[in-house]
């Protein structure tokens, strides 16, 4: 396999944009990315799109060529990947393999979702399709409810508290307030987080990520060709995608995401590193409890201690191993199909030293963890400054 580098990144701001359609968001992020990587459309060998529910949210299928032709990318493979909230993580994983194998050289990966054109109950219904619609959906499960079921069990087994969950939201909002592209650039207090409107007990509105519009793009190429495009190449050191049951009631233990621990183990092995070597990470905090599970399942902290670790400040921007310096899905926003690639963009920004007010000093090895559904898909990517 060839070594692979990220040579360009581009994102739209995340937010509610009633005047923007799905394609214009995707095109904006991709054009910024092509410019950032000094790549022209006719140099792109393939276009990989991550999108969860364009057909349901905006009534359009066949999205990949619909977008790539608008970019002037012609006559190449152009395909959409769907793995719920890990759709663009999965697209990135496939693009990585295409370049690593030698099949393709310069590949553009875009993630996009346009969610805010639907009313909240319809958004809930579309998102619930990422769960098991027969066994969970028919019983009235929502996505927040699935993570509430996980939170309750984690609290019962490990003594995790409402304050532990709130600490994740407070920290991510503090980081997001420093991110010019974040959906909700607003600092919140512990008292506010604890007094949020109940959504699905024990989760309140402050435990839930945002319903957002947005897009993100990355360009990858063989590491040996990276210097043609950028003087700041970032190497994909390790990458793994794994899977698990879709329905929670099929899992032996819902306080751990098996797909996260298996993907992490494979990605660490490929990169030749351990959890201790990761200096910062973007993790999939679709709900506050998901960040707690993520830092445990990635091996940053022992199982059951994630809540205590978070409340003690160990995940903050100035801590030794900062988590979600972008503000995470909680504050940056969660246009679901865009999230996986957006996380990779945020890790690359840190490694390049371009993260502005939220720049971390230990920035040589970062990790992105993208989760699909209630844990049925996970993509873990380890990125490092290219030697």
């Amino acid at each position, binding site marked *: 396999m060839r070594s692979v580098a990220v040579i360009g990144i581009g994102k739209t701001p995340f937010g509610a944009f009633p005047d923007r359609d799905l394609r214009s968001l995707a095109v904006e992020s991709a054009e910024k990315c092509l410019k950032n990587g000094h790549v022209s459309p006719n140099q792109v060998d393939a276009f990989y799109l991550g999108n969860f529910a364009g057909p349901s949210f905006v009534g359009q299928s066949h999205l990949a060529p619909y977008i790539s032709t608008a970019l002037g990318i012609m006559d190449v493979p152009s395909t959409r990947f769907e793995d719920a909230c890990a759709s663009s993580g999965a697209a990135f994983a496939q693009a990585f393999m295409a370049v690593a194998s030698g099949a393709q050289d310069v590949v553009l990966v875009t993630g996009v979702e346009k969610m805010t054109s639907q009313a*909240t*109950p*319809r958004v*809930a*219904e579309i998102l*619930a399709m990422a769960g098991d619609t*027969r*066994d*969970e*959906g*028919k*019983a*009235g*499960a*929502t996505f*927040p*409810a699935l993570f*509430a*079921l*996980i939170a*309750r*069990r984690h609290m*019962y087994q490990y003594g995790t508290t409402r304050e532990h969950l709130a600490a994740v939201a407070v920290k991510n909002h503090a980081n997001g307030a420093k991110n010019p592209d974040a959906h909700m650039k607003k600092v919140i207090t512990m008292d506010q987080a604890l007094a949020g*409107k*109940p*959504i*699905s*007990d*024990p*989760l309140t509105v402050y435990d839930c990520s945002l319903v957002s519009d947005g897009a993100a793009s990355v360009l990858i190429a063989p590491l040996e060709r990276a210097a043609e495009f950028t003087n700041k190449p970032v190497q994909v050191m390790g990458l793994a995608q794994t899977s698990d049951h879709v*329905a*929670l*009631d*099929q899992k032996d233990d*819902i306080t751990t995401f098996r797909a996260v621990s298996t993907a992490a183990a494979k990605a660490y092995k490929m990169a030749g590193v351990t959890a201790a070597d990761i200096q910062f990470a973007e993790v999939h905090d679709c709900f506050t409890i998901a960040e707690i599970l993520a830092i445990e399942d990635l091996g940053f902290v022992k199982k059951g201690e994630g809540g205590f670790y978070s409340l003690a400040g160990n995940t903050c921007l100035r801590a030794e191993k900062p988590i979600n310096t972008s503000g995470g899905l909680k504050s940056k926003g969660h246009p679901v199909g865009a999230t996986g690639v957006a996380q990779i963009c945020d890790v690359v920004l840190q490694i390049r030293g371009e993260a502005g007010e939220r720049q971390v000093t230990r920035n040589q090895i970062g990790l992105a963890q993208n989760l699909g559904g209630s844990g049925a898909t996970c993509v873990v990517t380890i990125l490092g400054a290219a030697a």
Partner: protein
Amino acid sequence: MKGEIYTETVIHSAPEAFVSEVPYQLVIVTLEDGHRVTGRILGGRVSIGDAVTLVEERNGVPFFTR
């Protein structure tokens, strides 16, 4: 059929088809044979560890009570 509550949540914000039912309690029950099922609760609220009995199935969804 009997079982024990593995985990539970009370839902306040529901999908379109369930809006008229909020707040309602969703549970995962560990049945006597070790299998787990997702279902709903009739009557009073339940907590993790509570023993429950299957009352009926509606549209394929098991409803339990304490």
